[in-house]
């Protein structure tokens, strides 16, 4: 029960931070103050909070689970590619978006698109697609809260109570603190993440008798030696994955967060230190996930390894239900929690549980971003602000936060997590395919609203098509794939055990390429905005 008590202290702390932020606010009824912290965040809060905003539960739990099953490739696949692409996109796009926001008062990317491309309802279409891709994250956040509270309390706190507590805490500090509260909580959470990685690595390493021993044992066993190389993933898949971090800057909560910095200078430290933060969190998480394969004295981990072995050796004789059960049993998302339970002292397990909780609660900025988009892109745009005033706009944003949290909680109780896990996977590809919107608006004078509409509809259609394909065609056995059509001797579209491939690439690759081609061709075929508008953006 001690870990659960430490987690409750943590939850109370973040609640206090949110409410303290509310009390610090001097312009509570002003939209810019509530949704963007008055564009006044200092350099370290900006860095830590931006990083925390980008790190979901996946950074800690999912990455160690992925590494548990696939080995060290997880780091190169997800961390080092993001370490290059995310700060680069902040440098190129984030800084320009910040300047436009500061100059013209934009609070969402769609406000900029509407002004830049002289469009109205096309902006609404973009808002709707962005929101549809973001909602699954919020639901996953509630689910993660319930699962983690249940695990940390040893099953004493039921899933529905845990989910309700986490949803209530997140809703409260977002409701009261707005962007300022969310940013402070995220900064606090990032510090916890960073401490978590270092402490977990040293405690578990000591408990396992040193990592050298564990790694040499992994190398010596034919069943696990591949985990220390990258042979479980093809170079083509590895290359494809570098398109996924392109989504980061397109996520509404990330691009909106870029508008909160007080000075452009704040981006400097952020882009330089971002890769170091990635290293500090992902390296321990991935490494612990890999070495968990030697923690056979931990019963829960031993059960996972056995389930995986059965799946690999007896796949042909197993029924689909048995395979599903074994896949669930072998999933490694909780290996970090299991390692801590076994190797860390009770009080430390609680502290580290709070670190895990911090990762799970990353949905705060997404809730706030959706609220900002609703109030600015829909409520204010369709005359709500003009009719009812700015204070009503902020109240509307707060009510939206409550409604969204309640809906997410109800959905989290009624629907299986696997659906939303899949939706989140698709969302990354969808946001990557929306990149031409920002690139076109900020760097290409000739881009038009029709090009933007084509990109948005394509991204939505492609994500839907891949989702339908994966639900219609069942996943084949590990190591095989079901191909459809052929081009250059390669299956045009394949259903793989992990998802879908197009000519051997992840779907995100053709999605992004076609998206850019659509922006170019459709824009060239349609009329550009008038010169007066363009002169405000380009020299």
């Amino acid at each position: 029960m001690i870990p659960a008590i430490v987690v409750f202290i943590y939850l109370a702390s973040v609640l206090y931070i949110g409410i303290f932020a509310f009390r610090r606010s001097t312009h509570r009824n002003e939209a810019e103050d509530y949704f963007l912290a008055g564009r006044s965040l200092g350099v370290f809060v900006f860095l830590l909070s931006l990083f925390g905003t980008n790190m979901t539960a996946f950074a800690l739990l999912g990455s160690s689970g992925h590494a548990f099953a696939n080995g060290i490739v997880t780091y190169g696949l997800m961390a080092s590619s993001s370490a290059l692409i995310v700060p680069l996109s902040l440098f190129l796009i984030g800084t320009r978006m910040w300047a436009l926001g500061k100059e013209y008062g934009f609070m969402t990317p769609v406000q900029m698109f509407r002004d830049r491309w002289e469009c109205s309802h096309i902006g609404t279409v973009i808002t709707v697609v962005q929101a549809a891709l973001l909602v699954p994250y919020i639901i996953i956040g509630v689910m993660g809260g319930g699962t983690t509270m249940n695990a940390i309390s040893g099953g004493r706190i039921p899933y529905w109570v845990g989910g309700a507590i986490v949803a209530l805490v997140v809703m409260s500090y977002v409701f009261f603190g707005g962007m300022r509260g969310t940013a402070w909580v995220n900064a606090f959470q990032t510090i916890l993440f960073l401490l978590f990685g270092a402490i977990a690595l040293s405690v578990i390493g000591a408990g396992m008798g040193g990592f050298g021993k564990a790694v040499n044992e992994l190398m010596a066993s034919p069943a696990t030696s591949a985990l220390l190389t990258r042979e479980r993933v093809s170079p083509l898949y590895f290359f494809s994955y570098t398109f996924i971090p392109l989504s980061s800057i397109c996520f509404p909560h990330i691009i909106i967060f870029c508008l909160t910095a007080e000075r452009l200078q704040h981006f400097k430290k952020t882009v330089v230190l971002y890769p170091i933060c990635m290293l500090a969190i992902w390296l321990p998480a991935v490494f612990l996930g890999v070495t968990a394969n030697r923690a056979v004295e931990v019963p829960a981990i031993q059960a996972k390894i056995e389930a995986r072995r059965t799946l690999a050796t007896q796949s042909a004789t197993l029924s689909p239900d048995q395979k599903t059960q074994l896949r669930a049993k072998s999933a490694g998302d909780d290996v970090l929690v299991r390692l801590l339970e076994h190797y860390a002292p009770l009080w430390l397990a609680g502290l580290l549980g709070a670190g895990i909780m911090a990762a799970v609660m990353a949905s705060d900025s997404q809730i706030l971003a959706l609220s900002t988009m609703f109030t600015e892109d829909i409520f204010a745009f369709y005359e709500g602000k003009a009719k009812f005033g700015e204070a009503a706009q902020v109240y509307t944003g707060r009510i939206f936060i409550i409604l969204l949290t309640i809906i997410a909680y109800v959905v989290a109780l009624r629907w299986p997590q696997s659906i939303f896990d899949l939706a989140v996977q698709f969302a990354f590809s969808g946001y990557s395919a929306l990149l031409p919107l920002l690139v076109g608006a900020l760097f290409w004078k000739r881009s038009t609203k029709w090009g933007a509409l084509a990109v948005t509809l394509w991204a939505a259609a492609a994500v839907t098509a891949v989702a339908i394909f994966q639900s219609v065609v069942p996943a084949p056995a590990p190591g095989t794939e079901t191909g459809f059509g052929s081009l250059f001797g390669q299956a045009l579209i394949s259903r793989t055990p992990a998802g879908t491939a197009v000519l051997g690439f992840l779907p995100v690759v053709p999605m992004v390429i076609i998206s850019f081609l659509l922006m170019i061709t459709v824009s060239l075929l349609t009329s550009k905005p008038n010169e007066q508008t363009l002169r405000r953006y380009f020299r």
Partner: protein
Amino acid sequence: MKQLFLVLLIVVLYALHQDVWFWRTASPLLFGFLPVGITYHVCFTLAVSALMGLLVKVAWPKHLENVGEKKSETTPPPASASTPLLSESEDAAS
């Protein structure tokens, strides 16, 4: 020339991310426990940080820095604003 050099540097670093040369080997182990495949990507991450430091030093979009101050003096609405903020000729190395 400076722009081209920085763009090339980014492209080279992106290409170096695709390190097929350590694909199927775990040795040598750094400090006796860190496989070469992950050691390489740790070094890659540090190199990215250095690249970002270089970009900040030599390609920082200085012309955007005073935007906030201008707004606080004049607060122009979008439709009446007249100062261009972006330049089509600018890129990563502007």
